[in-house]
């Protein structure tokens, strides 16, 4: 899984993807309500939201599979619709469900989809072998995919999206229903893509995946993009604070009283273990907290800092947990 991925052809457009006011309804239900965002070349953008938030519908419209009711999708400077064809060659789409032909081998699946992307001859053969190597399926290349494990099918599913070295790789919940080992392998693979300049649009409802892979995150709920930015920006945006747990003994009430008056500390209290504080940003404050506690005849034996995560941000924004 560590074979380098060839970098895609340089893209002259400043943006790989530009989504403007995208809308989609199914009867009375508005699945996507005017979503807008952008992705720059080489950027890994995460679309985070609970099941049914509208992530897949959004992704399918961006991939040109589903017709939008309104709005505009521009990929590498070209507008995309369900009937435009040339612009689709800039996109590699990995659907949420494994989309393979069971009665064809891994190599035959790759060759077929490669041909659909316009690859042929030696170039096709070369890319098929590279992707087989990348997905660690070279030794099973001739086997029908119906005989593959779930993890192998997932890896091949992603490999097909990479065949034609797209400018934009769209991954729709690629780790759903995958074992731990395959999941780690898939995440490594995605990191590798980004490292080699491919822009990635990654949807998931797993916070840890977005935190690991994506520089910028869009939070989607009920068909709307409710927040967007880097993790730090999002946390700041909603005003979430760091929680500092200090293991300590001594004059704890005096220590809490003094520390509570420090700038940047919003809440301080005594616990059975020591002291608990709510602060704006723990890292620059910690030396002053230790100094103040020591001067108050409090002996510090340990410290633990809990930074707010995207789960907390989501909870703050929607009033419910991401996996509710």
């Amino acid at each position: 899984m560590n074979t380098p991925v060839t970098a895609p052809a340089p893209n002259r457009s400043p943006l790989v993807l530009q989504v403007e006011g995208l809308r989609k309804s199914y009867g009375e239900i508005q699945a996507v309500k005017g979503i807008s965002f952008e992705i720059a070349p080489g950027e890994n953008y995460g679309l985070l939201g609970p099941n049914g938030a509208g992530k897949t519908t959004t992704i399918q419209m961006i991939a040109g599979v589903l017709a939008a009711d309104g709005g505009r999708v521009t990929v590498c400077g070209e507008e995309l619709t369900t009937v435009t064809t040339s612009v689709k060659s800039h996109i590699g789409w990995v659907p949420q469900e494994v989309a393979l032909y069971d009665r064809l081998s891994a190599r035959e699946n790759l060759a077929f989809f490669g041909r659909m992307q316009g690859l042929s001859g030696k170039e096709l053969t070369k890319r098929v072998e590279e992707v087989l190597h990348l997905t660690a399926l070279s030794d099973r290349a001739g086997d029908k995919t119906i005989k593959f494990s779930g993890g192998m099918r997932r890896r091949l599913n992603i490999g097909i999206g990479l065949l034609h070295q797209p400018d934009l790789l769209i991954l729709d919940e690629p780790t759903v229903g995958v074992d731990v080992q395959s999941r780690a392998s898939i995440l490594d693979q995605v990191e590798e893509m980004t490292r080699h300049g491919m822009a990635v649009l990654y949807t998931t409802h797993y916070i840890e995946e977005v935190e690991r892979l994506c520089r910028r995150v869009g939070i989607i709920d009920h068909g709307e993009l409710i927040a967007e930015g880097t993790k730090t920006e999002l946390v700041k945006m909603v005003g979430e604070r760091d929680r500092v747990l200090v293991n300590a003994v001594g004059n704890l009430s005096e220590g809490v009283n003094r520390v509570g008056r420090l700038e940047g500390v919003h809440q301080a209290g005594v616990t059975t273990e020591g002291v608990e504080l709510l602060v704006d940003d723990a890292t620059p404050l910690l030396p002053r907290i230790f100094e103040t506690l020591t001067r108050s005849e409090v002996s510090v034996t340990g410290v633990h800092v809990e930074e707010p995560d995207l789960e907390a941000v989501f909870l703050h924004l929607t009033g419910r947990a991401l996996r509710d």
Partner: protein
Amino acid sequence: MRDIAWIVLKDLRQQVRDRTIFIFGLIAPLAIAAALSLAFGSFFQTDEAVVFEFGISNADAGGPISEAFSVAMAELETEGLVGITFHRDRFSLERAVEENEVDAGFFIPDGFSQAIVEGSEAEVIVVANPDGPVVAGVATSIAKQFALEVASASAAGATLAILGGLTPEQMVQAGLAASQANPPARIASLEAEIRQLDAPTFYSAGAAMFFMVFVVGTGLLSLLEERRLHTLARLLASPISPGRILAAKFLLSFTVGTGSVGLFMLFSRFLLGADWVDLPATALLVVAAVGASAGIVSLVAGWARTAEQAQNFQSVVAVAMGILGGTFFPVAGGDTFLGTLSLATPHAWFMRGLGDLSGGGGLGVVALPLVVLTGMAVLTLTISVLGARRNMRP
């Protein structure tokens, strides 16, 4: 065109690996044709084309119109389409039918010609054995066709009468003369119902058509299957237009249909002794019939939401059209309700075309079946393509 060809080749590869296509396209029709040929081959008497024997009893001897009927039948006999024997009265004709000396008979009552001349009601009585509905149907068709000829002659005579002041008898005779000036039209209209294929060819053609309907739905079923497997979405995300994906699926149906029938015809010739005369004309009939069947199946199965549902729809259509189209047993002549209904199936026109070809005459004699089948194909395929577009979504 390359992308379309790759999709068709990919689907064919899967079909071959699945082996179902061989069961429905070759093994099942061969087995059914062989079984039916063995079980019911005696219906056809010999391996030669069947010639029906008709008896005629004319109680209106000397009447100009009843004599015209005898002349018309004699023309059919000269063509080798029927055999004729004359009987002195109705009783002897009925006995000949009962004792199977003849397949069916025509009794022309006394005063038949005079009644027509006077504009009264007149009828040719068909004497047939209830056990032989096919022959009865053919005999009824002949009698009705003759009645149409007489009506047309009367109309022509009436026109002459207005123009030339003829007597009623002169009027009818003039009309008859006018109608007899163009006998081929009369014979041609009866020919298809009289000609029959030999047993191995009939049952092979029937089985080929019957099972072909099961395989021509391949394209649409494959489209629904691709939706189930999510590969359709993947194709839609590729730089290929949805219309070309649809074109590939219909081309697949056509390829599988013509391929399986062609292969079956080859095998049935050597294994069952089926006699496929005039191969170019037969090939054209096959192509047109496959197109029409693919269109009808796609039209019906196009309502399905899943591949399984579409398969069920396809089976219902296959069995209904197979029975109605006369692929198992010949359907009574076109004058019966069933006969008329059977003309809505490509099977009936395909079987009729093969029947026409068995009498010789080449492409010209199958022009009508070819035109009808092609019309069916164009109409149904156009509608089903428009309908199938709603399936072009993830």
